[in-house]
């Protein structure tokens, strides 16, 4: 990963490819690369779909190695949904293959003038940009089928569906999984529309002839990786809970906690929760001949994913994540997993963020376009998005815009991005993160939970009132750091409880790069990334007034705890004081 490839899609005479050394980004990966490049090179005041915006695609620091869990791919740009900087990441095979080819980043810049649609073929020898108008308006599943016929099964594909081509603000970039299905999405923030604005329909990554990246110190790397994997396997979350039930194991618990936003955040408990639970989903998948345990990329030892078959035992979609099941399920008052799975498939096929679309459908239900609980109605609304009708384009613009178009007063968005599956009133700490993250409402921004080991910001007394601010700050720093290494965030649970697993993680990085990173260095990396992101947003015009939850979270209590969000503005403004 010693090179960056830059593709100027708007160059005179057609797209121009150039190569440059990795330079100041050497030894970095994932979110560190995307956010530092965007922050440095993109005018924060640019239109996100204009020629000044860039789309940066970066594998993780250990992607393409034999290291476990190292296959997350980050995509960064100025977000058309939020107007902020954006990093969105996904599993799938793309990061591993791109890293083995040898690129630390692909930067797409400029914008072609005409209406032609392009595909980019990246191999170890070359990067080709070709016009292929036969791909126009294909959705992800048929698109990948067509590309496979030409490029085969030994490559990884990144693509946009019709939503990205139509520049919808909820559109995603799909990455294929080990079975070559377009099921892993850089979902949040409308990154698909940025790729669409550059008229790039697909990127084909072919690492033929390339081996795994070699560590500087192979023995130490192998040993550290072994300890790391052992740590993941022995921890109850990463070794048992996630493999058995996936992230949807959270449904029952959130529902029991009264923190499961139901029917557009009007209650914290959904009476149909048990029917949507990870436990029910895993049982259904196994009974129908699917899989309750499956990795989104090779090298994943946790395997939190699965395969969902329909009633006849035929593949329908991958195992929907907790947030997807919530957005299309409880948020819409729907308690039927078959409906949720179908909506998940449609999202993947059209190329849409499942959280944004699910929340949007709930807003449409609030507006009276369908009843809460109406499965057919939800499918019908999403079909409109696939067809690109005026209604579909409105819905595909996300919850914020849909709420405005239909005059819905209470719309759960921060910086115009839909709040995900955890109500911030009973769980105030996550509300702090939703409000203040650089990305718009995002549950993963403060997801990593290794702060007690990283000791970011020193030890926190959880009993003090400021504990929640401190924790949110520390979580955001730790997440930025883990995102920058390109590891799946789910490693965080083993790291939290097992210091030797955390040490093995640092040892892997050091053995690979021949460095002597400490936990402090990892924290500093997290801070550096957040500082750059925050600075970008400030230059884009964002102020502390944008770091707030919608007003109704402060005024409308939610059952069963009857709480409102009570963090003061001053407290929220203190999150970035370091």
């Amino acid at each position, binding site marked *: 990963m010693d090179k960056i490839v830059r593709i100027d899609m708007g160059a005179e005479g057609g797209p121009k490819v150039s190569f440059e050394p990795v330079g100041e980004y050497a030894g970095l990966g994932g979110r560190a690369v995307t956010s530092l490049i965007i922050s440095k090179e993109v005018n924060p005041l640019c239109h996100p779909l204009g020629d000044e915006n860039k789309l940066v695609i970066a594998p993780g620091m250990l992607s393409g190695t034999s290291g476990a869990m190292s296959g997350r791919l980050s995509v960064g740009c100025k977000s058309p949904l939020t107007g902020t900087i954006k990093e969105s990441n996904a599993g799938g095979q793309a990061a591993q293959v791109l890293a083995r080819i040898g690129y630390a980043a692909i930067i797409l810049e400029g914008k072609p003038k005409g209406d032609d649609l392009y595909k980019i073929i990246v191999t170890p020898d070359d990067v080709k940009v070709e016009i292929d108008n036969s791909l126009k308006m294909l959705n992800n599943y048929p698109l990948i089928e067509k590309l496979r016929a030409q490029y085969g099964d030994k490559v990884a594909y990144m693509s946009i569906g019709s939503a990205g081509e139509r520049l919808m603000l909820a559109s995603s970039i799909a990455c294929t999984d080990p079975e070559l299905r377009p099921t892993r999405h850089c979902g949040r923030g409308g990154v698909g529309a940025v790729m669409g604005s550059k008229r790039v329909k697909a990127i084909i990554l072919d690492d033929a002839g390339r081996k795994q990246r070699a560590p500087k110190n192979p023995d130490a790397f192998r040993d550290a990786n072994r300890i790391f994997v052992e740590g993941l396997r022995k921890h*109850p*979350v*990463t070794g*048992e*809970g*996630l493999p*058995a*039930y996936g*992230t949807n*194991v*959270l449904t*029952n*618990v*959130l529902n*029991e*906690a*009264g*923190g499961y936003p139901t029917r557009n955040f009007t209650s914290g*408990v959904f009476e149909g929760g*048990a029917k949507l*639970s*990870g*436990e*029910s989903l895993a*049982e259904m998948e196994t009974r129908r001949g699917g899989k309750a345990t499956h990795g989104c990329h090779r090298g994943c030892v946790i395997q*939190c994913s699965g395969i969902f078959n329909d009633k006849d035992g035929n593949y329908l979609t991958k195992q929907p994540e*907790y947030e997807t099941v919530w957005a299309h399920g409880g948020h819409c008052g729907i308690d039927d997993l078959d409906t949720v799975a179908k909506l998940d498939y449609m999202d993947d096929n059209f190329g849409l963020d499942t959280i944004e679309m699910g929340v949007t459908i709930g807003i449409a239900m609030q507006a009276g376009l369908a009843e809460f609980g109406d499965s057919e109605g939800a499918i019908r609304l999403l079909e409109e998005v696939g067809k690109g009708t005026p209604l579909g384009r409105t819905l595909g613009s996300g919850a914020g815009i849909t709420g405005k178009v239909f005059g819905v007063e209470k719309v759960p968005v921060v910086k115009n991005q839909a709040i995900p599956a*955890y109500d911030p*009133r*009973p*769980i*105030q*700490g*996550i509300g702090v*993160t939703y409000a203040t993250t650089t990305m718009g409402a995002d*549950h993963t921004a*403060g*997801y*990593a*939970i290794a*702060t*007690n080991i990283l000791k970011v910001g020193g030890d*926190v007394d*959880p*009993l*003090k009132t400021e*504990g*929640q601010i401190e*924790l*949110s700050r520390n*979580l955001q720093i730790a997440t930025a750091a883990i995102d920058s290494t390109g590891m799946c965030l*789910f490693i965080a*649970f083993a790291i*939290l409880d097992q210091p030797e697993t955390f040490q093995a993680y640092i040892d892997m990085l050091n053995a690979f790069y021949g460095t002597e990173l400490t936990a402090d260095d990892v924290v500093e990396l997290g801070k550096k990334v957040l500082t750059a992101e925050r600075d970008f947003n400030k230059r884009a015009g964002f102020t502390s007034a944008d770091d707030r939850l919608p007003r109704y979270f402060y005024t409308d209590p939610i059952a*069963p*705890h009857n*709480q409102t969000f*009570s963090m003061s503005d001053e407290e929220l403004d203190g999150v970035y004081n370091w």
Partner: protein
Amino acid sequence: MPDTPSLELQLPKDHLANFFPLFQEGVEVEVEVGHTVRQMLMEQFNISRDYQANRITTIFLNHKAVDDAAAALIEDGATLALSGAMPGLVGATMRSGGHLAAMRDGMTYRNPEQAPATGRGRIRLKLFNLLLPELAPRILLHGILLEPQRLRSLFAEQPESFHTGGRLPTADKRLWENEHLELRVLFGDRNP
């Protein structure tokens, strides 16, 4: 439960999972109330202190997260939900006594000022995720109280193989006309 009609079934072990939906929604159990969660689980269900500490890492009492099972008191009519360790930030936040407990301070369980009365009582018990296969057998052995309709629905949803292990005595009117029936299930490979 002297006035509650009871039904005892013996089923093959591979039918255990058929009862999981009941436990996710919650079943009523009769226990000694007025004691701590830890004590109740140890004394009523023989769940060891070690198991509780290592496996039951997320506990809700009346929808509130419990940080100290050795202090939280169970009263008659309470709802108790038990779960293994959860992923995600919020999962970690809910963990008993976890580092992130401050993030859900407003929904943390606190004992009422007046200690609940001790004696026999009924609570609603829920089991989630990894604890389902591990704890459901001993709860079913202890006996659960069910509305007859829930038991009928459960049986109606099962494949024929399930019924060979335990047919419902549908003719026993007393069983079906009461508000609740007590169900005890023994799991083993011997047919009844």
